[in-house]
């Protein structure tokens, strides 16, 4: 493992003088601080009266100081621990020179306490305070964050845990809150501007001529076809590892934040993705994860080995480590340009093998909403899954890539994660380690096929399909979308991808959670049929970094999306872009339409996969104006937001 890296370093070092200017030139390997592990849990606040003070501060990440905005002196902000049924008063003091706010993500609160400046209240002016006061009507894992400007990127986020009023249906002996996030040395405004003026600015895993000659990635023909469409299949994330350090509870991968357990304990991990821009693929090699809660709502336990968590989603997982040894929690960025890393260990100061970053995904025609191309005569189009195509030594990831251990002898624990992505292995004589592969549980493979619609289309008669007339920007497919420079593509054939595990996880060789695996533990509170349905198109232009709903940015649109109090509506989110979008509605939960009837999983945020489609039903039961947006911070900032209005019957219009 060390070899590819040091070679890359050498190449970069020799090719350029003045590499200190390089975006990715962090500390050299020898200067990286190696922490014995930080076991300190997040500071906690609780009770009926809580004071939160927002202020600028610095934070230490992997031994390096970084500017931040924190609350009560910490990043992430303190854990707010509440009990279902209590009333809480949260006095939020804004010590910043600018406006700020706090949105309680996933909490059902009166509209004036939802915390979106310009929608629910005027905001909290600099050097002033605002009193939030509401009854706690729910339990579960949630979080809170700024809804002002780009403050969230700087650390203005924290976890909320609400204990149930009665008995918790989830049994566990110990719990840990895992707040995943991304942090940059570049100012959030700088990140936004770079993406705006220089498409693909942070993507250092693009396809190259060297790659073509080495037989990596797409073939010449495919590159030609994609070039014709002006689409970059490596454009998976806008902001990537070279710009970010991925954090667990505010700590970098080298800090090695450590969660303690006693062997045999059922450990509840409350995983929150508080990132600005990063979708994480979370796994703990060697441990199975039993998902018991999603977005604060209990679900029927589902056993997986990995799950994808979109920005603003939460998942609670139970793990039961039996051995007296350390395990690595890996939160791999969806584009595999870096990872958040923590350790689960029986004692402080332990560390486990860190699996290498897997091969980055390459978008397929399906990701452009062109339907499923991965079958009958379509070989070669779906490039995401292919194995053994070598590694781009010039591709750049963040320093977390260095954590992958050289000697993978310990194999079994780490191997399951390696199978497909871990290309570097093949260059360092890994064949000798075949023995370690025995530890991989192939028994999970059949389960996967059940959750992969792409594999089950045998009954489709592709012969009758006519590709010739497929257009990538045919507005007749989406009449409601406003034509304009902000709409690069319209998905000709958006697919329901809720049965898929998420971009880049199609063939990782083990069971990955899909939305369809989720089923509510309790019957849904409202099981009426929706009285109507609406389509909302997720639109954008990656070349101009414009993002919108139905082709219109928040800055263009004054009219809200209207609902009548109490009505039940089906919402179809259609992704007309080649990027996944975590879509969040304030003030409400929705039930995913994934075939589970009155046991539909209830969520506040859902990823709509590239070129995909997600349908949910919801009951508009909270009168007021509510924000509705993509939770990728810079997508929202670019305009991917709307106001949703709920009004009593007869009062509207």
């Amino acid at each position, binding site marked *: 493992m060390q070899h590819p890296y040091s070679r890359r370093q050498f190449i970069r070092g020799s090719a350029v003088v003045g590499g200190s200017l390089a975006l990715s030139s962090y500390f050299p390997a020898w200067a990286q601080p190696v922490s014995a592990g930080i076991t300190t849990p997040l500071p906690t606040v609780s009770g009926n009266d809580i004071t939160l003070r927002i202020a600028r501060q610095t934070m230490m990440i992997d031994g390096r100081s970084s500017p931040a905005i924190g609350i009560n002196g910490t990043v992430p902000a303190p854990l707010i621990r509440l009990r279902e049924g209590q009333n809480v008063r949260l006095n939020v003091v804004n010590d910043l020179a600018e406006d700020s706010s706090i949105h309680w993500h996933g909490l059902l609160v009166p509209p004036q306490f939802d915390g979106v400046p*310009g*929608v629910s*209240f005027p905001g909290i002016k600099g050097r002033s305070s605002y009193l939030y006061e509401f009854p706690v009507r729910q339990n579960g894992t949630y979080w809170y964050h700024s809804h002002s400007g780009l403050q969230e990127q700087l650390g203005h986020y924290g976890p909320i845990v609400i204990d149930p009023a009665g008995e918790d249906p989830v049994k566990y002996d110990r719990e840990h809150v895992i707040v995943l996030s991304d942090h940059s040395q570049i100012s959030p405004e700088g990140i936004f501007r770079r993406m705006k003026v220089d498409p693909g600015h942070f993507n250092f895993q693009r396809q190259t001529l060297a790659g073509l000659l080495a037989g990596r990635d797409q073939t010449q023909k495919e590159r030609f076809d994609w070039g014709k*469409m002006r689409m970059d299949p490596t454009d998976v994330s806008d902001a990537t590892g070279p710009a970010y350090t991925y954090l667990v509870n505010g700590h970098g991968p080298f800090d090695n934040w450590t969660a303690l357990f006693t062997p045999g304990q059922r450990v509840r991990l409350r995983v929150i993705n508080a990132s600005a821009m990063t979708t994480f693929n979370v796994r703990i090699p060697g441990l199975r994860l039993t998902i018991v809660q999603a977005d604060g709502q209990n679900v029927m336990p589902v056993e997986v080995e990995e799950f994808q968590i979109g920005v603003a989603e939460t998942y609670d997982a139970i793990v039961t480590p039996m051995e007296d040894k350390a395990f690595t929690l890996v939160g791999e960025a969806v584009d595999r340009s870096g990872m958040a890393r923590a350790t689960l260990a029986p004692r402080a100061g332990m560390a486990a093998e860190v699996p290498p970053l897997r091969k980055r995904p390459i978008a397929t025609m399906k990701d452009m909403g062109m339907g499923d191309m991965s079958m009958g005569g379509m070989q070669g189009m779906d490039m995401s899954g292919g194995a053994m195509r070598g590694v781009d030594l010039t591709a750049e990831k963040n320093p977390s890539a260095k954590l992958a251990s050289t000697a993978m002898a310990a194999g079994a624990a780490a191997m399951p994660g390696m199978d497909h992505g871990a290309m570097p292995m093949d260059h360092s004589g890994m064949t000798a380690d075949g023995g370690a592969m025995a530890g991989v549980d192939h028994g999970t493979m059949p389960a996967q096929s059940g959750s992969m619609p792409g594999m089950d289309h045998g009954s489709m008669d592709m012969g009758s399909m006519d590709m010739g007339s497929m257009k990538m920007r045919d507005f007749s497919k989406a009449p409601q979308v406003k034509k304009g420079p*902000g709409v690069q593509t319209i998905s000709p054939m958006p697919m329901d991808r809720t049965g898929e595990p998420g971009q880049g996880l199609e063939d990782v060789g083990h069971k990955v959670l899909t939305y369809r695996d989720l089923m509510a533990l309790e019957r849904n509170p409202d099981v009426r049929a929706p009285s109507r349905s609406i389509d909302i198109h997720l639109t954008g232009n990656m070349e101009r970094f414009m993002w919108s709903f139905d082709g219109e940015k928040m800055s263009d649109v004054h009219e809200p999306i209207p609902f009548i109090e109490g009505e039940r509506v089906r919402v179809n989110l259609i992704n007309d872009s080649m990027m996944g979008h975590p879509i969040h509605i304030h003030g409400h939960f929705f039930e995913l339409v994934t*075939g589970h009837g009155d046991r539909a999983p209830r969520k506040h945020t859902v990823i709509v996969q590239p070129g995909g489609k997600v349908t949910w039903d919801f009951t508009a039961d909270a009168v007021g104006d509510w924000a509705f947006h993509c939770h990728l911070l810079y997508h929202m900032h670019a305009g991917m937001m709307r106001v949703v209005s709920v009004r009593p019957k007869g009062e509207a219009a």
Partner: protein
Amino acid sequence: MIRLAAALAATTALAALVAAPAQGQSMQGMPGMSMPMPAKKPAPKKPTATKKFPAKKAAPAKRSSTRTSATKPGDQSMSDMPGMSATPAQPAMTGMDHGAMTMPAAPAQSGTMEGMDHGSMPGMQSQTGASSMPGMDMPAGQAGHDMSAMSGMAQTGTNLPAGTAPAPQPPIDHYAEKLFPAHDMAAARRDMMREQGGQTNYQVMFNLAEFQARKGRDGYRWDGEAWIGGDINRLWLKSEGEGAFRQGVEAAEIQALYSRAIGPYFNLQGGVRHDFKPGRPTTYATVGFEGLAPYWFEVEGALFLSDKGDLLGRLEGYYDQRITQRVVLQPRVEFNLAAQDVRETRTGAGLSSAELGLRLRYEITRQFAPYIGVSYSAKTGQTARYARADGEDPTVTSFVAGVRLWF
């Protein structure tokens, strides 16, 4: 006059050629891909939404059955569902529903659905064979879960089809103004809207800023642009020029343009160009385009009408070939056209000059990339004759070293 027309035609044709793909990208000619076109929009709404579904009756039975098997939802039996055992068919149905494909395979699907109780499923009744099947997506996600209560489950909650009630009118008030002063909310709303998509951005970029080593006298050259504005409307400044050391600037121009996004990739630009050199200062009215053509070619073209009535044209294009993540080879071409001889600036009608360049840069950062390369420029036709008459070589080959930078 003929030459004027020819030049005009050439320029506009090229402009049209480049601009057209921006409007609608066709996938034609992508072999290996054949996809169904949705023959029509699916009829997503079925008249339903009456309250007499037996949902509530069926629910308790279902609940108990799911409870008992809650721990392993992945392994649950579907044996109680006659005709539904064909699990693989289910994801396929999902695909069908959402793509609204007309599928020859569908009759087989409906066959497997026979075991279902259609009696109380509105939306399924009228479905036959190969039509689009809005009602079919309901059981799609059942794969892997308990199907024993299928007929009950299919008719409750999210498995129900949506009705066709009309959408309400959007309210004209702002709810928060009931609770907060209207002017405070108005100000906050204005900020919020500007913050989500209404920002002003800018960029200053020099694609070329280079030293040119050539036979005789070494020179320098620049080609840069700057813009400020929102997503659609921007103010652009462009400048390019060249000179020789100890002889001063030979050519220098600046353009001030209003730029408007007219498609996902292209901007239409119009404004003025002022040439300080060669010859006497000249001002032109200009209209042109700038953008990203298929296959990732950065292109721009413009027509210039001088204050003396002379018409010129220019086409430029370059391509960034990424060799590694930071090493980029940029072939670049520039053609200058004229509709007539302009003796003063020693410009001949037709294609007056062309430049072919090949530059290899290393992106120390995306914003700062030193390069080396070679540039070949040739004056042609009458322009070349002017040059020869002036004792100049109409073709110049330069080895160049410079930096591409933006901020």
